[in-house]
């Protein structure tokens, strides 16, 4: 499904040439692009196990994993304009592959983790091949169909996947080597796992960032902006779409693997379609036209979920209402809103100067 955004997206300007003339109503600030955000965010989040409570460390781990999942979805959604309802399939495949390898076969994390990504990528090659032949709603429906096929398999294949009750007691990876890192010896297993997760996710996000800024990434945005035009100028649209599908699937698989370990279990619920909706909401909540939109969305959603379920059991109602507000009042998401504010402030300043 090609998305025609109602406003020009916050552009990633070529190189570091600032826009000529007075600032436009666009919120893009070229300087912002040059800051190594991934590294900064990584450093900012690093001290959490030492300074935060155990609960915050748990929350942090979950947010970081969801952020990777959402960023991988945004590769499809925001960068290429492909609306996939079945992205959760690769998340689930990654979780199951890693969980099964580690629990049933005792394989180490160092092998199981990349295997999860590769397994998910393998499935996305097969599924993606058929999906990219379709557009719009048919594409979305086929992704949904494939994801529910995976769900049905996970659900019924009791011998391998544990069926409805899934596989409980997935072990933590062997993190004894972390004792070598200064300051890490006194951390609990959860703290160490947080650090491991943060590092792996930061590397993955940096990789995805490189992809979106590369010429490949720019071809993807060309496809998003106008699929037919991209085809007319000679782009092999299907090949590009398949490629990004596989990359997104692979990273989703990695996030799934981490999630399975985090929850200490893999369940068919991970592949059930409402989880697809959940990650899509995260992406849009943060702002799908921004690279950091999905992580912001993950942060806001997970944090709000925790806070609000303390007061009421009607979290879905709150989420639904939030979604309505988002759709009607704030279509650019949180970052879109901030960008608009920044733009408005900039205009005010410019007017004062003029």
């Amino acid at each position, binding site marked *: 499904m090609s998305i025609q955004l109602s406003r020009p997206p916050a552009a990633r300007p070529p190189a570091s040439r600032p826009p000529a003339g007075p600032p436009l109503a666009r919120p893009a600030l070229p300087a912002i692009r040059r800051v190594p955000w991934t590294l900064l965010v990584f450093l900012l989040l690093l001290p959490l196990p030492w300074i935060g409570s155990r609960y915050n460390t748990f929350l942090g781990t979950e947010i970081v994993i969801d952020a990777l999942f959402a960023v991988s979805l945004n590769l499809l959604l925001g960068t290429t304009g492909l609306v996939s309802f079945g992205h959760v399939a690769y998340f689930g495949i990654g979780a199951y592959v890693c969980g099964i390898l580690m629990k049933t076969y005792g394989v180490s994390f160092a092998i199981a983790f990349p295997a999860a990504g590769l397994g998910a990528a393998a499935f996305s090659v097969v599924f993606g091949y058929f999906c990219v032949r379709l557009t*719009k*709603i048919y594409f979305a429906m*086929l992704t949904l169909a494939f994801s529910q096929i995976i769900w*049905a398999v996970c659900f019924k294949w009791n011998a391998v996947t544990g069926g409805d009750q899934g596989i409980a007691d997935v072990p933590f990876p062997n993190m004894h080597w972390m004792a070598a890192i200064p300051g890490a010896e006194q951390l609990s297993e959860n703290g160490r796992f947080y650090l491991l997760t943060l590092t792996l996710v930061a590397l993955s996000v940096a990789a995805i960032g490189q992809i979106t800024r590369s010429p490949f990434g720019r071809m993807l945005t060309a496809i998003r902006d106008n699929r037919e035009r991209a085809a007319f100028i000679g782009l092999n649209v299907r090949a590009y779409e398949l490629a990004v599908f596989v990359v997104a699937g692979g990273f989703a698989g990695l996030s799934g693997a981490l999630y399975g370990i985090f929850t200490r279990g893999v369940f068919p619920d991970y592949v059930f379609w*409402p989880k697809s909706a959940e990650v899509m909401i995260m992406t849009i909540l943060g702002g799908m036209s921004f690279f950091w939109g999905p992580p912001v969305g993950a942060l806001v959603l997970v944090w709000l979920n925790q806070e609000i379920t303390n007061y009421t059991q009607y979290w879905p109602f709150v989420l639904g209402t939030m979604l*309505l507000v988002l759709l009607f009042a704030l279509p650019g998401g949180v970052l879109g809103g901030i960008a608009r504010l920044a733009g408005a402030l900039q205009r005010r300043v410019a007017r004062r100067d003029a």
Partner: protein
Amino acid sequence: MTVSLIAAQFLSGLTTAMFLFLIASGLSLVFGVMRVLNFAHGSFYMIGAYMTWQVMQWLQPAGASFWLAALAAGATVALLGGVVERLLLRHLYGQEELYQLLFTYALVLILGDAAKYIWGTGQLSVHRPPVLDGGFHLLGTTLPFYNLFIMLVGPAIAIGGGLLLSRSSAGRLLRAAAYDREMLGALGGNVGMLYTGMFVVSSFLAGLAGALITPIVSVVPGMDVQVIVQAFIVVVIGGLGSFWGTFWGAVIYGLTLSFGILAFPEFSLFSVFALMAVVLMVRPWGLFGRPIR
């Protein structure tokens, strides 16, 4: 493989199919005309079921309460659909389809919790109307009268709806809107009213389907999420936007599930999704659909 076994599975498959057709017909119509895939359709179905139970609670002593309750449920849900469309959905028409889809998902969340709040989380049970109690023997298997009733209602609505679409002026407008809504608007057709009307009818069908299923299943939170994917499969197989397509899609789904449990029980769950995938890969617009522009 006796005749009675085949007959039994065939009839149970048809019953499932007709229920799904009732639910999915509204979904298909809305998509055909308005290009909106309404996730909340399952929620309308659930509200219809709850309303039926509620009205029957109120009408307790009366005799024909089930039919009244079913109609009342359908009407309530129709009203709900109309309000939702007029006040909220229409503002999203110009926007990208993703936003419309997410809007309907937001409705799923809101309506689901609203139902939980109003009717609680327990199982609610509705008795089948006494006039349709019992069953009769057919080809070595028992067919409950209620199931037979559903098996007749389904095609009745299909035929009636098909006739309306092809013969009436409203139907003509609907088909025109499905084909090219901009042109219809340019020619002076009141597209706004048409959309609202379409949504209202679709919601009525969903509510009615929910009402009619209450004697057979317990009314419980979560029935909205369970049914919507089944409805999606049906409309995809039959063809998005095609009324008769939905009918045959439902029949195929019901029979696949029913015979699947016999022939390959491990794969019965898998088979319907695989069917959906195969249809999308081979003929994306379904058996009876038309490629959408």
